[in-house]
């Protein structure tokens, strides 16, 4: 029961209700919301941005941040498409090389944070410039076009309204949740996030937890970059350039604490669904695209301010009251 509450706190329930209401409103106001194509496009954006948010969440669960998610995703997409287009590498090998690079970038972040003890915000801000600079140094801001058709057709593939790439995201999300909630190292990672000193004194492998979290973050960023490359059908140097805000928005609205120790996977998923709905709704009603940025900012503020009056607290209060009355009855 305790574990279940950790996975799906009351906040998630509130987000779920808001998401469902949002879908209802959108399908009434703009019937084209339910069109197969619109659902496909929205689902595809969601598949990519959810990985971006989870990449941030896994580092936030340590009480750290990763500002280099976007530049890792961009660098990986460029390296993969460059290897395939320029050097004619076979698709699987190029993808493995790219994803490995993502993990290596994450490990570099993790090792540097652990070794130098520099504030992870500033450290990953610095490495993000290094990764982005290498990306632009290689490409000179020109994309790699004509990536192999296996990749670009995967970006367009769908089953009914469901994009095929959503399968990748679903599998990775489930694996990440399983790792954080069931695997010893995942639990240790959350323990380190909860109280690093206590974790160190209890003999937990703090360094391994830090490096692992950053490596997972780098890997998820790399997958997100790869999927966006497939969607765009080109290795574009600006891939990932706008990911900082959504990465934090999804996790913070989803209920993560910047101080660490919490990894609200379901909350993050539902928050990203909400952001995708807003994004899609604005497109469908032909609103100024700049409203997206404004509304995400308002949403973050609204969510954290509401979070003070915690829907979750209300839920636990109600549950607690019910349990108390039950105890009273049984007593």
């Amino acid at each position, binding site marked *: 029961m305790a574990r279940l509450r950790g996975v799906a706190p009351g906040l998630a329930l509130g987000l779920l209700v808001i998401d469902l209401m949002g879908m209802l409103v959108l399908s009434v106001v703009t019937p084209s919301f339910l069109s197969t194509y619109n659902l496909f496009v929205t689902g595809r954006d969601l598949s990519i941005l959810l990985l971006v948010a989870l990449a941030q969440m896994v580092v936030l669960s340590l009480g750290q941040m990763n500002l280099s998610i976007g530049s890792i995703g961009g660098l990986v997409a460029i390296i993969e498409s460059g290897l395939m287009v320029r050097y004619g590498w076979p698709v699987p090998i190029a993808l493995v090389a790219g994803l490995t690079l993502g993990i290596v970038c994450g490990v570099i972040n993790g090792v540097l944070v652990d070794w130098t003890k520099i504030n992870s915000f500033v450290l990953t801000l610095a*490495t993000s410039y290094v990764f982005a600079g290498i990306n632009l*140094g290689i490409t000179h801001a020109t994309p790699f076009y004509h990536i192999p058709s296996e990749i670009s057709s995967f970006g367009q593939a769908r089953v009914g309204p469901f994009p095929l790439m959503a399968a990748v995201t679903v599998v990775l999300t489930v694996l990440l949740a399983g790792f954080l909630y069931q695997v010893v190292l995942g639990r240790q990672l959350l323990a380190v996030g909860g109280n690093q000193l206590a974790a160190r004194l209890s003999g937990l492998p703090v360094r391994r937890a830090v490096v692992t979290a950053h490596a997972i973050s780098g890997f998820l960023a790399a997958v997100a970059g790869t999927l966006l490359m497939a969607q765009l059908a080109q290795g574009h140097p600006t891939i990932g350039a706008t990911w900082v805000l959504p990465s934090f928005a999804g996790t913070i609205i989803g209920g993560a604490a910047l101080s660490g120790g919490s990894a609200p996977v379901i909350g993050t998923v539902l928050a990203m669904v909400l952001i995708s709905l807003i994004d899609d709704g604005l497109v469908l009603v032909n609103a100024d695209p700049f409203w997206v940025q404004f509304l995400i*900012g308002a949403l973050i503020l609204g969510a954290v301010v509401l979070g003070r009056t915690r829907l979750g607290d209300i839920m636990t209060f109600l549950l607690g009251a019910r349990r108390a009355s039950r105890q009273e009855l049984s007593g």
Partner: protein
Amino acid sequence: VALRSSLGAQIGGRLSRSALVRQVALLALLIVTSGFWIFFSVAASGFTSDFNLFSLLRFAAIQITIGFAQMVALSIGDMNLAVGAIGGATGMFAGWVMQTLGLPPEVAVLFALAVGLLLGYGNALLITWTRINSFIVILATASLITGAMLIVTHAHPFSELPDSFTSFSEIGIAGLPISPLVLVMLGVAAALFFLYRNLSLGREMLAVGANRQAARMSGLSVDRVVLLTHGLSGALAATAGLMAIAADHTASPSLGSDWLLASFVSPAIGGTLLSGGLVSVPGTVLGGILLATISNGLLLVNIDNFWITVFLGVVLLLAVGLDRLTRAAGGVVS
């Protein structure tokens, strides 16, 4: 008053322990900067031309002012992620006041500074009211500010700014290749130096940054300090925005979007502690000059702009790494 002065004495004592290390670090920064000047004077043709020196110093002045906006927030142990958002929005606002309303530049400058001050103050109001982590609050407001600016302006630049405004950044002073913007920056630097060295508000800011809990226990009104600090940071961001539109001759909607790294680099190189409680105004000036010198010089010796981006990232890493070493050597615990 007694409490306040004893707090000041404690901080003073702590500074004097590490003062030697910090002086040495500042001297080293000066030597490194001079070294780069000598190197580029020899290696990069045109580095010492009046035109190049003029644009280099003007660029440095803007970068340093951006750094000041961040340095002020860092002094109380906060980060102002909205430096770019506020600078961009106030720059666009000033452009609108001059071009659309047709008001004189002096009025636009005053309005823009007031808006910057209010935006920073608004951030701090949200932080102190809600007690939400300042990072999250400012992440959200930065997005709100930039979003609102783009919605209102439809991302159209203001490119017909009055000559009386833009020419201010162009004229040389007494025949020297120095833009008046450099004097603006030096004036701001002198004011900040005085604030942190001589005014009780400056000392209170450092006390809050060094140990917020201890400052509160000593009877400081921490909320008041936070409000004034973020207001000042916003006004400085607006100053940088005004300087940038004067130098660019246009207020562009992308203004400020790339300020985040620069805002941290100059203070970090100059020895300002990211965790708060310790600032160096001369260090930030030198840090900004070093940053501008390297960017300018590398371009002149035909090194690709993209590698300069990599270089800036590495410089920030080295700067904060050295910062930790300095702290260890100076015995400052925070």
